[in-house]
């Protein structure tokens, strides 16, 4: 079920009302949330509910088993069982065909073509997200950071919690699971805050992301026909499309959870105001980057084993992150670009500071910040080419054509009518302005301080902007990009 669908518009109010009717009893409430979450997921394809059920069951039992023994080998064995089941599902459903195809391509490259057909495997929605979430539970128990729960209902609900089930934020058990042990009382401010976040998320998705997608799809689906400015515009549009698409989803997810009293972790923090790629990853998909930090980077030794090992660890994390995003070489290259830049930033930090001091660059000034924001954004956009391109060949064509200015057609001929194109620029500008403003103070608190008329006008305007300027209709709501991961 998509958040921007009629199905969800009917589902959510019913769940919201029934939730608050059952909220005073923890078990009934959790039971209701579990049924609702399974319904939410099963609405897409009920057959894959068994994957969530098996993951939940295995990790619930494994958690108790790990905690119940002090035998290191047994503990490790149980952890491997959890990793095997969860990563087994993930690898099978997500990467089998990628491996087969890569194997075939490798043989062809070396002049020995072989016949091997790929399998007909449907990628279960959200498998990358809930697998990582439930893995964090067993790993944290193994590390003795948390204790397992004996409340099977709370645990199953934690794994399947519908607001963040299919595209995150990827929660840690230490943060989200205890919230299922509490009972909540209706808090007007929380609910209002949640609803506003949902509206803001829908605005980002339906008004900005889906509008920009029209132009982006037109260009990226026919890369050889576009050059210079068209590719620059399409790539910048994609940067904002994916930001609005994914952060919009996260806003809605956090908003929904908040209307029910739950607190989900922040997933985006104005990432395009980052002054380095390192900072970008502290602001972009925070729940994933911290997951990789906690469960991949640190176990690899983090920064404790010398410069070169640190660089290797960082690089590896970003390659893995690329692979996590999708079973294609384009995502691997995307991860490699980020990995390389982050390693360079780390390695060149001291020399760079020395150079800046030597030539007398004033640190922290607007011009310095602006310059680095621009550089970072350009690098991020360049990497997005590989992320968005349909194939590696397409990505290379785009990179090649990117520099050929003067060969292309008008940006007004890329699927968006001039008025729609101008509206796109306006909403991007408003988004940047909002992010800048939001960097300095909470928009919610600011709005709360305004007078009644202004506040209500704002609510009506945001709802109306979605209704009038949103890209929807044609019977099918537009899917969120991160669903495919």
């Amino acid at each position, binding site marked *: 079920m998509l958040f921007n669908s009629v199905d969800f518009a009917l589902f959510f109010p019913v769940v919201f009302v029934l939730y608050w009717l059952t909220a005073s009893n923890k078990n009934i409430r959790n039971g209701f949330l579990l049924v609702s979450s399974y319904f939410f997921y099963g609405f897409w394809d009920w057959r894959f509910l068994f994957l969530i059920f098996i993951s939940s069951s295995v990790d619930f039992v494994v958690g108790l088993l790990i905690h119940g023994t002090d035998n290191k080998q047994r503990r490790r064995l149980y952890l491997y069982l959890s990793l095997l089941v969860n990563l087994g599902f993930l690898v099978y459903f997500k990467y089998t065909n990628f491996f087969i195809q890569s194997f075939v391509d490798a043989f062809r490259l070396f002049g020995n073509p072989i016949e091997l057909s790929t399998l007909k495997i449907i990628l279960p929605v959200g498998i990358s997200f809930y697998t990582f979430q439930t893995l964090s539970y067993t790993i944290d128990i193994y590390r003795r950071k948390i204790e397992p729960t004996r409340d099977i209902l709370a645990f199953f609900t934690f794994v399947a919690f519908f607001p963040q089930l299919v595209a995150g934020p990827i929660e840690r058990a230490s943060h989200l699971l205890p919230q299922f042990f*509490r009972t909540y009382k209706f808090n007007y401010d929380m609910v209002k805050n949640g609803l506003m976040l949902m509206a803001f998320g829908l605005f980002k998705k339906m008004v900005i992301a889906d509008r920009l997608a029209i132009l982006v799809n037109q260009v990226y689906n026919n890369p050889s026909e576009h050059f210079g400015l068209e590719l620059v515009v399409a790539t910048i549009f994609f940067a904002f499309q994916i930001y609005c698409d994914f952060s919009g989803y996260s806003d809605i997810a*956090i908003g929904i959870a908040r209307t029910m009293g739950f607190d989900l972790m922040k997933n985006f923090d104005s990432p395009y105001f980052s002054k380095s790629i390192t900072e970008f990853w502290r602001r972009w998909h925070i729940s994933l980057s911290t997951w990789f930090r906690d469960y991949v980077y640190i176990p690899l030794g983090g920064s404790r084993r010398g410069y070169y090992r640190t660089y290797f660890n960082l690089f590896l994390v970003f390659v893995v992150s690329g692979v996590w995003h999708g079973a294609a070489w384009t995502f691997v290259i995307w991860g490699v670009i980020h990995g390389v830049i982050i390693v360079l930033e780390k390695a060149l930090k001291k020399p760079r500071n020395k150079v800046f001091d030597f030539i007398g660059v004033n640190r922290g000034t607007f011009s310095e910040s602006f310059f680095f924001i621009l550089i970072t954004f350009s690098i991020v956009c360049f990497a997005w080419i590989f992320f968005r391109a349909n194939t590696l060949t397409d990505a290379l064509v785009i990179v090649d054509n990117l520099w050929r200015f003067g060969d292309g057609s008008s940006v007004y001929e890329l699927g968006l009518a001039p*008025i729609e194109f101008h509206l796109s620029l306006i909403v991007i500008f408003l988004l940047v302005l909002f992010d800048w403003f939001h960097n300095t103070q*909470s928009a919610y608190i600011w709005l709360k301080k305004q007078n009644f008329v202004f506040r*209500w006008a704002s609510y009506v305007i945001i709802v109306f902007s979605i*209704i009038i300027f949103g890209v929807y209709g044609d019977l099918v709501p537009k899917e969120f990009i991160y669903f495919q991961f």
Partner: protein
Amino acid sequence: MGIWFQKSLSISSFREKGKFLLKTVILLSLVLFFIGFLEAWFIKEDHNSFSVNYSKDKVERIDIGIFGTSHGYTAFDPRVFEKNIGVPTYNFSFTAQRLIAMSPFIDDVTTKYDFKLAVIDVCNLSSDSLPNPKAKGFQYLTFDNTRLSLSKVGNFNKVYGYDNMFEVFPTIRNHTKWKEFLDSKPTYTIPLDRDFYKGFRSYFSHSKEAWDEHVKKFKWPKKKYKVNKDGELDADQKQKYLEVISKLEKKNIDILFTSAPVYQKALKPHYWAYLFSVQKFLDSLGFELIDYNSLYDELELKKKHFRDPSHLNSNGAVIVSEHLAKYIRNNFDFKKPPKDSFDKENNRYFLIDKNKKNALYHKRFGKNSKIGSLGINGAILYKVFDDRYELVIQGRKRVLDKSRFKLSFDFPKTEARKVVDEKYLLEDQNRLVYNEKFENWIDYKGKSFHVFQFNAPFSELNNFELKVGSGNKVFKEDTLKLKP
């Protein structure tokens, strides 16, 4: 800092829930209000919406309401009903309207008007299950002009599915038309070749182009609209009839079913089979169906009475309307309404029959006069609706058929911005000149009348002049006051 602040989770009270509920209701009401407020912008403007808005704005009382499809609004002319029965009548038919869309619309209009009789005109498509997107698309015309109600939402969902339930609001369905806000949206006016009167909106004449186009567009399927082999409507079809009947019966409104005629050669067996099934079903319920396809020969309908194979023109509509009006007068009781319940000075047939004095301008020409010898016996000018005027010329069709006429007038210079018929405007002058053929003939009570309409949103017309043939002046009036 961020939007992501979290307050204590323990604050709560019944008051909090009440406050939330109240504010949610207020916000939703505000949003719904604005959706409704903007609706006019997002509804497709055409003759259907024009007709409904006309009834809302201008018509106070209706005793007979006619419902149906384009067959209905081209066949039943309220002028004839008002003249022959003496009660205000309105034709609420919509293009390709099915019973499923008609039902909530009937709810809507019967809430406003106290009908005595509803004439439901059906065709072979009336109760079908809307198999294709085009047929579904046509139902928006009716739904969009029906006020929001549970019945409307229910039937809308039956047609379009609950996935599209929010599309019941034109503002939501047509939201991409926001761009049109930036341009000035022209107001729809009924074209000059269309004969509008209280929802009736046929074309004046037979048209070869329209005929050929229609034949090309609607290739009659051999057996598209099935009834079962026993000649019975299926349960779903019956239900649609029953829904409409029950709504009207609840309000004590008499019901009469009709089926407007289509050109005889276009009437295929499946059409007959459908009408036969409907007749059988309605008979079993005790309702009358007047099938004008069966009366085709009796009414002496011919190709010239049709605009295209499916639709009568104004000339054909008079014949069918006269017949139906007579039937209603003989079979239903109507108390005489107050004299001012409808305007006789806007009704063509009132005026040409015996009330010429109610016209804005009228003149008779003796047979032996110069004008009479040209084939013209008289002329009447009257206001049809809004700024639409009609010049009716009584004359000899055979003589005038080959001639042209030229109607021209000056309008006050200060009112130049009001001109609607721009293509007839003389360059750099405040004069409109209509140079036309005699092709809109209506046969009424054994006489022939040629009708011609024009838009005159002015306070007066100066040098109002009609010439026929090679400059023969029929009349000239220095000044005609149009608005008080």
